[in-house]
């Protein structure tokens, strides 16, 4: 069963109704959110683009939740580049929904059964408490969608060829799942598989984590797909875009590649960074992500600090908008009197 079914018009109609209800829900249950809406003069939205958005970084600076303290079931954290951490509060229902919807999204490309799984990472990742929250949580979260896991890297972070060969001997004849961060897949799976003639043609790759490190090595998303298919037989690969602040919602690359798609319960809006109005397809701007999953915290309409562009609507592998993430908006820096000699001793 797919969660990529709704044409844009039908989706917007459905989402708008649910999101308007969510705005009211969070307004009634999250006082800081209510104060933001009232200070910015929000009254009503006639379209998804008119819904009031929160900058995603707000979750690093504020405790935003729409549930009482005693209903907090899980607190998710993300480590940011500057050491600030987002805190996302889930109750039991929200935690269950996000797992279920993430599963449903992935089943669109993985099928209903759990597949044997290669984790393109190192097990020692789970031991290092500092890096655990970001990468470790991502890997652990995805691991639940596979079985008979193997780690592609040994404890020291070096490729574990023997483990991969052993895995492929056992499971390589049927569909299997590969998960990892894009640059790790490129550096530590693709290169190793190519050098050692590993056959990954039954693999389905799910990967994420941004292209910056690869673009630095002159590997574009198209090149990544082309070389994986040509050199190691890996033709099914799906990049995805998602963030802890909208946990459970991922925007998944379609089978033919090149575009990310929105599941039925989510959407994106690209905004002009000068006027903040919605931009039509083809014009790059700041990405806003919209999802009906956040019920326990007001993360249903978030302005990211990522630049993106909508390529088309209802004209791709799946219905709805298809888009790409183009990179990150640089962080604003003050030209002030501070910051002379930091980090000394």
């Amino acid at each position, binding site marked *: 069963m797919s969660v990529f079914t709704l044409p844009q018009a039908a989706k917007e109609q459905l989402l708008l109704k649910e999101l308007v209800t969510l705005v009211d829900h969070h307004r009634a249950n999250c006082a800081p959110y209510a104060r933001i809406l009232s*200070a910015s003069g929000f009254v009503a939205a006639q379209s998804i683009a008119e819904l009031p958005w929160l900058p995603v970084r707000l979750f690093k600076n504020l405790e935003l939740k729409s549930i009482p303290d005693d209903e907090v079931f899980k607190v998710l954290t993300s480590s940011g580049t500057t050491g600030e951490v987002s805190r996302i509060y889930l109750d039991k229902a929200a935690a269950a929904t996000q797992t279920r919807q993430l599963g449903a999204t992935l089943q669109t490309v993985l099928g209903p059964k759990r597949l044997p799984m290669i984790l393109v990472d190192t097990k020692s990742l789970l031991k290092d408490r500092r890096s655990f929250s970001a990468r470790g949580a991502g890997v652990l979260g995805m691991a639940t969608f596979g079985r008979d896991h193997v780690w592609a890297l040994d404890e020291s972070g070096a490729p574990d060829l023997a483990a991969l060969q052993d895995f492929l001997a056992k499971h390589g004849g049927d569909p299997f799942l590969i998960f990892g961060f894009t640059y790790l897949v490129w550096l530590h799976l693709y290169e190793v598989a190519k050098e050692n003639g590993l056959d990954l043609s039954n693999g389905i790759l799910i990967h994420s984590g941004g292209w910056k490190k690869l673009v630095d090595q002159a590997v574009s998303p198209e090149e990544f797909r082309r070389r994986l298919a040509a050199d190691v037989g890996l033709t099914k690969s799906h990049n995805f875009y998602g963030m802890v602040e909208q946990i459970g919602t991922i925007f998944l690359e379609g089978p033919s590649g090149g575009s990310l798609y929105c599941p039925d319960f989510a959407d994106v809006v690209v905004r002009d960074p000068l006027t903040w109005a919605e931009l039509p397809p083809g014009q790059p701007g700041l990405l806003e992500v919209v999802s009906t999953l956040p019920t326990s915290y007001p993360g249903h309409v978030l302005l990211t600090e990522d630049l993106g562009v909508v390529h088309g609507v209802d004209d791709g592998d799946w219905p709805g908008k298809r888009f790409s993430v183009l990179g990150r908006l640089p962080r604003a820096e003050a030209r002030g009197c501070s910051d002379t000699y930091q980090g000394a001793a």
Partner: protein
Amino acid sequence: MRFRFGAPGELTAPSDERLAVGDPRVVDFLSRFARKLLAPAVARRHPELGSLGYFLRPAELSRAVERMRREDAYVFPRGNVFHVPPANVDTIFVYSWALSALAGNHNVVRVSERSATAADTVLAALNETLADADPVIGRTQRMVTYGRDDAVTGALSAWCDLRVIWGGDAAVSAIRKFPLRPSGRDLTFPDRTSWAALSVPGWRAADPAARKAAVTGFANDAYWFDQAACSSPRTVFLVGADPDGVAGEFLEALAEVVEHRGWLVDASMAVEKRVNAYQLAATGAATALLFPANEITALTLAGVESAPRRWIGAGAFPFASVASLLELVPAMNRQDQTFSHFGFAPEQVRAFAEALGGRGVDRIVPFGQALTFSSIWDGYDLPSEFTRLTTVQT
């Protein structure tokens, strides 16, 4: 280590060179340096260097030297001075260094690696001036760039009689880890907050030309250095009964100036301001937010006590209303530096200063003067900090 100015060599080596307070060789050097900064091509490209050149005119220099003289004591150079200026306000290091040089000190200035183009222009002008200056200048005045090298910072700290630390609380704490010699002292410039006050009756009484001049001055104060210099005004206090409409008129006039100047605020900064403004709304500190354009963000504060003391972005203006300047006195503290004003009678401003009684605020200046450096800065009389006194009884 890169020598940006002065004779390369051991920075902390003992020196036989002696300069006097107001040494003619230094005065000559600084006046010729000022002329280069005031050249139209330079001033056009970097208006802040024009202000610096103005500050270093011969008349200003002799006034500063005059202020160092005393009847009751001999005034001598303090000795060795180590300056650690901020990375991002390109010209501060020159003000601090020039006054210290004028006082006859041997100076070492650590110029940040991240210093911007205005700093390069300054260094080029300094070096051009050096070419036909008395060699004593290059031997006693050195500017260097080095990374976070604790050995160098430690040696210079042990060498100097006075260490001048700009750059806020974090910089002060970082540098303070390096011990001074027992007689050494620190002159510190920690994090500061600066304010603006607009008299409601004063604004209403002002004619369009006076309003425009006020707003233009305020805009310069706020937008140079991205409203992040210690003296950049942030919160605007509307002072007087019945302020309705004044903030709106002020913002409208401000928008015109900003548009006329062509100042732009990019998307990153706009997002930064949204984050900070939403945060103030979320906690209840701000009750209304306006985002008319990326260049201007306006916030209505719940009250004077909600005025933020941290930077919230370039072109972000919280407003709070009070009946009189005296009502602001309890809200001021030692962190507060510059208080710029428009539309008040001189006696109102003086009464405010007297009521403060030293609890905070170092400078009270009209709109447009917030960034104008002066030899009394952050509550210090810099020429007197840069000198030592010898008394004689015969």
